[in-house]
């Protein structure tokens, strides 16, 4: 490599413009464009029309992006020199458009689509969205009352969510560490803001935003420092370069290992693995429920995608170094998540701990690091992809139901107040019970197939003790899922029972979709499992 300073000034070399494969990147670009357009709408569209325009823009943009994703997915070629991987590295090595990327794009886009429907719900708050009208106004102030009176709404939530979506799509597809870091921030920053925008219980909402922000910034500093150390070891940012350096094992071993550890902190914070989970319950509880749904489903996909790519592609050669650490974290995550959930009294917090436990189950699949053989056995990557699909839909469905169980002060998240819900509204309680059963991994629901997939991948990868722990943790987890069902159906309501508000078509559609997917993936998981399987491996 020629040192730049040595290039003589007399003969300036021509500057080649970078090649960008716009076609391959079209889903990302569409979403980014929609986000920017949303900002423009905020600036120029009349206030009365903004909500409609923003909703239509967001949903339309996602649908177009989904179509583009399908188109990109169908056009993926088999990568040279690899039996499983399909796709290629584009944008000068910054983004890898391969099977897992496209699968996860489709997945986060679908999650975003249903989440946007939740964002657009206005009937539950009497014609206003669940987001505060004036984020700048302190709760209870005259300014806030004025905002309510004039029916002011923060329609910025849509572009913010779109920006987060760009981050979620870029994070698992990033093929160099810098892009990954930027994607991480693009994904996180809008979410910090969205967390603080709840219309009701704003103190909790703001607190959750602050906690999420401070801890997120703290952990991304670790991530950034990890990148610096890995760069110091490898001398480059490309995952392929790092892979080569790791395989060759030039000196500076400790630099690499410290870098791996610190980067692990960053992604494990995002997936909510123990001991980096402390933010999860507080943020899930405090954030507006629609945001919690979006975040719980989308962030998990993005973060696990990035984790898989980072550790399988860049650090694949050092797997013997990081796998023991993953064992520890996976066990801690499953056990702490499942056990701590047992005594939760708030539905949203309970779901948060459940998401921690599920992060542990997915980590089991990751830790198995089973790259598969030529025959059709389930690989770590495909099992994790399937689990994320399953978990995401059930989670969004569960949070959607949380938004419609209400009393005079808004959502009723106290679990004890859910007693008797089965009598009040058998359909809603039945749907929630279905999601609980799916989380518990009961056969004939999607959760069972998901657990089976990750556990079998881990088993094939030789991590059978982990599978044993996972099964035990599942048993503990099942106990609190069943407790919710018992509360809803077999407990007498105390005082005035809960009431189920009638939502608009949007929320209803979300719940119906979640129920259908949960049942369908439990009964006929084949097609989606095959799709995850054909997503294959990462390109290098």
């Amino acid at each position, binding site marked *: 490599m020629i040192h730049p300073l040595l290039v003589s000034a007399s003969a300036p070399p021509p500057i080649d413009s970078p090649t960008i494969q716009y076609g391959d990147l079209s889903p990302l670009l569409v979403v980014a464009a929609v986000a920017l357009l949303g900002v423009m709408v905020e600036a120029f569209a009349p206030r009365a029309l903004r909500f409609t325009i923003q909703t239509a823009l967001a949903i339309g943009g996602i649908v177009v992006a989904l179509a583009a994703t399908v188109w990109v997915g169908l056009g993926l070629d088999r990568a040279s020199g690899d039996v499983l991987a399909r796709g290629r590295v584009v944008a000068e090595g910054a983004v890898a458009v391969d099977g897992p990327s496209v699968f996860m794009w489709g997945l986060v886009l679908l999650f975003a689509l249903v989440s946007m429907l939740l964002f657009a719900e206005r009937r539950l708050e009497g014609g206003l969205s669940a987001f505060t009208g004036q984020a700048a106004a302190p709760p209870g102030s005259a300014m806030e009352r004025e905002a309510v009176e004039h029916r002011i709404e923060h329609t910025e939530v849509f572009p913010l969510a779109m920006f987060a979506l760009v981050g979620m799509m870029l994070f698992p597809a990033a093929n160099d560490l810098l892009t990954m870091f930027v994607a991480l921030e693009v994904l996180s920053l809008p979410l910090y803001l969205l967390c603080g925008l709840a219309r009701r219980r704003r103190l909790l909402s703001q607190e959750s935003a*602050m*906690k999420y922000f*401070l*801890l997120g910034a*703290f*952990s991304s500093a*670790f991530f950034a420092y990890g990148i610096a150390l890995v760069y110091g070891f490898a001398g480059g940012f490309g995952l392929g370069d790092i892979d080569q350096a790791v395989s060759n094992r030039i000196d500076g*071993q*400790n630099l690499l*290992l*410290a870098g*791996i*550890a*610190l980067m*692990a*902190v960053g992604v*494990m*914070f995002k997936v909510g693995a*123990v*001991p*980096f989970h*402390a*933010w999860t*319950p*507080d943020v899930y509880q405090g954030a507006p429920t629609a945001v919690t749904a979006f975040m719980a489903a989308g962030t998990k996909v993005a973060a696990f995608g990035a984790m898989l790519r980072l550790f399988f592609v860049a650090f694949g050669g050092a797997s*013997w*170094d*990081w796998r*023991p*650490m993953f064992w*520890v*974290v996976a066990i801690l995550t499953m056990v*702490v998540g499942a*056990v*701590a*959930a*047992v*005594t*939760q009294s708030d539905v949203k917090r309970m779901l948060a701990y459940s998401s921690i436990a599920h992060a542990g189950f997915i980590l089991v699949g990751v830790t198995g690091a089973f790259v598969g053989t030529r025959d059709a056995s389930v690989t770590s990557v495909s099992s994790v992809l399937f689990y994320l699909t399953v978990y995401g839909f059930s989670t969004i469905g569960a949070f959607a139901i949380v938004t419609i169980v209400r009393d005079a002060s808004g959502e009723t998240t106290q679990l004890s107040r859910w007693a008797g819900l089965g009598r009040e509204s058998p359909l809603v309680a039945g749907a929630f019970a279905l999601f609980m059963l799916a989380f518990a991994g009961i056969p004939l629901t999607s959760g069972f197939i998901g657990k089976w997939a990750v556990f079998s991948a881990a088993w094939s990868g030789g991590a059978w003790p982990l599978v044993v722990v996972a099964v035990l943790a599942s048993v*503990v987890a099942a*106990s609190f899922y069943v407790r919710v069902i018992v509360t809803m159906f077999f407990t007498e309501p105390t005082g005035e029972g809960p009431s189920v508000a009638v939502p608009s078509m949007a929320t209803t559609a979300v719940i119906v979709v979640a129920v259908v997917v949960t049942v369908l993936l439990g009964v006929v998981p084949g097609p989606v499992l095959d799709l995850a399987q054909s997503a294959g491996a990462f390109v290098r």
Partner: protein
Amino acid sequence: MTAPTDLLLATEQAPDALAPVAASGVFVLIAVMILVPLVSSALLVLGDGPRFDLADKRGHLLGTAASLASFVIGVVLFVTLLGRDAGDRSIEQNLFAWIHVGGFQVDMTFLYDPLSALFVLLITGVGTLIHVYSIGYMEHDPRRRRFFGFLNLFIAAMLTLVLAGDYLVLFLGWEGVGLASYLLIGFWQHKQSAAVAAKKAFVVNRVGDVGLALAIMLMFAQLGTTSFVGVAEGIEQVSSGTATALGLLLLLGACGKSAQVPLQSWLLDAMEGPTPVSALIHAATMVTAGVYLVVRSNFIYEGTEAARTAVVVVGLVTLIAGAWIGCAKDDIKKALAGSTMSQIGYMMLAAGLGPAGYAYAIFHLITHGFFKANMFLGAGSVMHGMDDEVDMRRYGGLARLMPLTFGTFAMGYLAIIGFPGFSGFFSKDRIIEAAFAENVFVGIAAALGAGVTAFYMTRLMIMTFLSSRRWKENAHPHESPAVMTAPLVVLAVASVLGGFLVLGGWISDWLTPVTGYETHELAVPAWVFSVGITVLVAIGVAVAWATYGRRDVPSTAPEKVSFVTRAGRRDLYGDAVNEAVLMRPGDQATRGLAVFDRIGVDGAVRAVTGGIGATSSLLRRAQTGFVRSYSLTIFGGALIVLVAVLAVNLA
């Protein structure tokens, strides 16, 4: 292969007979034979409620008609079969693939061959007669419609059992008759004793069913198929140990269904059911299913001397035990039940003798079906006239008041004791002859059994129909209506004439394609045996006459009796043995397990849940709400991760 009738002296095997031809022509009616009573049963059992008045009034006619229809089809098929060559008399009807999983396939197959044909005639023929009889016997029962529904269910299940072409289909029928038997024994479930007896029959039969089920599983494991044809073909390849295991397991199943020692205890209690049930199920048909199973599985027993010996021993022991019990009982139905056990013991014994005995086992089974059904129905007729009194010590002198019942019963009596010319004479003689040919001691025991049979049957005759009147005060014995006596007459005729099936060796010729046949070499001419056995029978009759005919019979059972009598009255302590060997240890074990469950398992579960709850509360407290403490966990976590990664490398 045709079975030449002039080759009886040679050993005949019948492998080719198990290459059945597909059902065509009238033989498509095989399944209809089962379907008709099944549908009728469903209509009768399910057609409940006020809108089904008609079913209550006319249901019994539908049930009887269904049974009759099956009988008519049975006769038509039988005649058609008679017209075929001996080699073509095996017809298979394949309805549909019942179970098809991986390499395991079970078709809903029915096999109609000479053996099944005889059974079909027996089941539907005797069954129809008993249906007719029941019209009168159950006339005053409010649940008569249901009773006929259960009887039809039994007919359908029993036909499935004998027509099955696959062990698993047979098992379906096997469990079906078990169910029907349970329902009918407990038909008067308001009586505690009936409910208990039904439960006992069910439980004891389960023990036998386990044997059959294991045998079927073993077939699948070893041969990959459970069809008769497949097993017959494959059985030659398996080890003799497997064949013996199969034989013994099937024998266990047969013991349960046929009330053979050691699973005999339920049959005597089963007499709690209505008498037509005792006649049809617990004398003529269902209890002979075990014999059918052994004969049908002849290809399995062919390869295993040990299992055959076990069959002989079981048969012999039961033969003696049943006769013994029959001598001691005062309850007319229980005396007959003991006799049933004993006679099935004869059949079992014959079946254990291999090809030399199969045909005679079936022959005796059929004649026994006639005369025992006849006598049970006769007993029912007596009970009908005596206000449901069953104690023979309260009978006496009924011959004059119930002439028809007495006359028909006498035909059955002469048949069972083997009076020359009556059916039992032929069938029992052949078995005893074959037993002598096999082993002298077995022969002697079987012959002595015949003498004992004569004793207890004569005792029963004398105490019931002859001797002095020992009725209770308000008893008004009377002859039963025609609808009940007509079947008695038909069965009495059959009891007399049934023996002619053996003339010219017809029965063995007929069954040779299925079971094979071999003659036995006897040291002395056959007539010597006949004379010897007849003499033994005469001695038995004489002893009974001396004991009961010449003296007055006390109207209450004497208390001071020999151990032999006491043991017989208590069913040879069968229940006591079960209780001591199985029930008490079982009770202890379950009690122990319950304690272990409560303290060990529940305790562990409670401790674990308690532990989890406590840990959970602790973890919950750790979530302090302070963002700085969260940062600390992240920081600490980062250190842990760092150390974990570096430590691995250093190690």
